[in-house]
């Protein structure tokens, strides 16, 4: 029975912790109060049946438990003196969805505290909002639990010392928070995607949790196309998880993936979300990236992909994000349309900006191989090796060098 209840608690946790953090102005107190309410639910629900509105039940119970706790705790004096009028016991009532929405956004935004580095922001969101254990988060980041625990403790301290305003945000402030939080979710997925391709077996915890948070954002902001697009983008990428590593544990490039292994139900859901986002009309960075991923997902093979469409999407993305990396991706699409030599010429001006970016050299090596210039290809691949590739990337590049060496010997 407890598995079912745990699943309900996990589902309610972000909203509950967010609302309780507003009530108590303190994340630790909110977490303790929620844990206490769950504990009570474990004995009450199986006896009396689960409530029709589990969030309302958990919130009321947690609020009363937290009040009790605050009254007894040493923090009592400080907190009570600031907010005495708010600490009245409350009857069970369905929380106001608008308020819950701002609460969840605020809590996520608190996790995106500017004094925290990006990984600590992600770690604390996973701990506080999602409720993952320190061990689970540590394994997602491939660090020791002890290290992760210290990082989370430090991060919590920084957050407590510099609180975020608890007033209802203005529309502009809400928009800014949503942008910052969405970026954190996007980077959480990226972090999971890159660590999961490490030497250890694929661990996709961070990716799955990022998708859960992206779902939460869409549920809270159904009219925001960018958040639907972000969820679509993550689902489209996640759909490839089984195809991007082969039976020997080697990384498989997008072009070479067995597309039958792509998760069709993820792709179908993403397609629905993207169509919804496109109907809203606003062309932001996530909607363009999702459209690119969807163009790949539609194609039966890399050759079948609509590269002209993909190239134009990258051109549009470059207008919003004029970075050399986006340009490089656009050129990769141009290579499919106009051949490797065209792309090599186009990417040459980026060399200065991207000399330390290993994908620049990996792409260049691949294109040189296509043109038959194996000597230069080997040099490019050797540069990749000096730029700290992951073990799996190292294996893939070593293989490519071997291929070019074989070609050279054959000449």
């Amino acid at each position: 029975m407890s598995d079912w209840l745990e699943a309900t608690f996990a589902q309610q946790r972000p909203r509950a912790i967010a609302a309780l953090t507003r009530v108590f102005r303190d994340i630790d107190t909110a977490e303790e109060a929620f844990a206490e309410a769950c504990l009570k639910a474990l004995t009450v629900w199986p006896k009396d049946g689960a409530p029709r509105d589990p969030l309302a039940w958990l919130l009321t119970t947690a609020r009363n438990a937290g009040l009790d706790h605050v009254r007894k705790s040493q923090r009592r004096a400080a907190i009570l003196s600031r907010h005495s009028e708010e600490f009245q016991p409350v009857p069970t009532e369905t929380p106001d969805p608008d308020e819950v929405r701002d609460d969840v956004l605020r809590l996520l935004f608190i996790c995106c505290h500017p004094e925290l580095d990006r990984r600590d922001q992600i770690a604390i969101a996973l701990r506080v909002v999602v409720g993952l254990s320190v061990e689970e988060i540590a394994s997602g980041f491939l660090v020791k639990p002890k290290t992760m625990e210290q990082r989370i403790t430090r991060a919590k301290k920084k957050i407590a010392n510099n609180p975020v305003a608890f007033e209802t945000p203005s529309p502009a402030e809400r928009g800014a928070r949503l942008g910052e939080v969405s970026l954190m979710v996007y980077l959480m997925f990226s972090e999971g995607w890159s660590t999961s391709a490490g030497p250890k077996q694929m661990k996709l915890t961070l990716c799955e949790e990022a998708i859960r948070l992206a779902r939460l954002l869409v549920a809270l902001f159904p009219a925001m196309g960018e958040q639907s697009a972000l969820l679509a983008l993550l689902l489209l990428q996640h759909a490839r998880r089984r195809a991007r590593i082969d039976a020997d544990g080697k990384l498989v490039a997008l072009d070479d993936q067995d597309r039958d292994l792509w998760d069709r139900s993820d792709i179908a859901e993403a397609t629905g979300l993207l169509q919804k986002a496109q109907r809203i009309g606003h062309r932001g960075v996530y909607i363009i990236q999702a459209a690119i991923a969807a163009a790949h997902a539609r194609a039966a093979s890399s050759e079948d992909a609509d590269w002209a469409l993909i190239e134009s999407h990258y051109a549009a993305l470059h207008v919003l994000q004029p970075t050399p990396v986006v340009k490089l991706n656009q050129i990769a699409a141009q290579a499919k349309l106009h051949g490797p030599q065209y792309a090599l010429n186009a990417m040459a001006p980026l060399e200065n900006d991207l000399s330390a970016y290993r994908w620049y050299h990996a792409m260049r090596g691949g294109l040189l191989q296509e043109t038959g210039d194996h000597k230069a290809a080997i040099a490019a691949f050797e540069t990749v090796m000096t730029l700290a590739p992951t073990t799996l990337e190292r294996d893939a590049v070593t293989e490519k060098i071997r291929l070019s060496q074989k070609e050279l010997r054959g000449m």
Partner: protein
Amino acid sequence: MIYAITIYGEAGVFEALPKDRQDEVMSGHGALQTALKDRGEFVSIKLMPPTSAVMVEPATSEGTAPLITDGPFAETKENFLGFYAADFKDLDEALEYAKMISSPVARLEVRPVAWAGGVISSE
């Protein structure tokens, strides 16, 4: 009489279950589908999460177009997740079949169907 077995639940709870519990729920659905297939025609639909939905609200006055809004708002309560429909001998038989997919993540409603038509499959 055709009865619909309609499924309500909170989106996301099923996904939060451990894998073996998910398999348990799915095996109930597998058994129901096999049993229904063995006895004749049936239809079943599983909806995507409510976050993928768009709403068409009725026109506010004559001559105006229906209003399209972007999805139901953050509901924390139960959602319509999907249904089965098949011809059953009587209500008791429909209830017997409904029990096959009963689980703590779903509330089921068994209701007679007034009209049914069309054929569709995503497979």
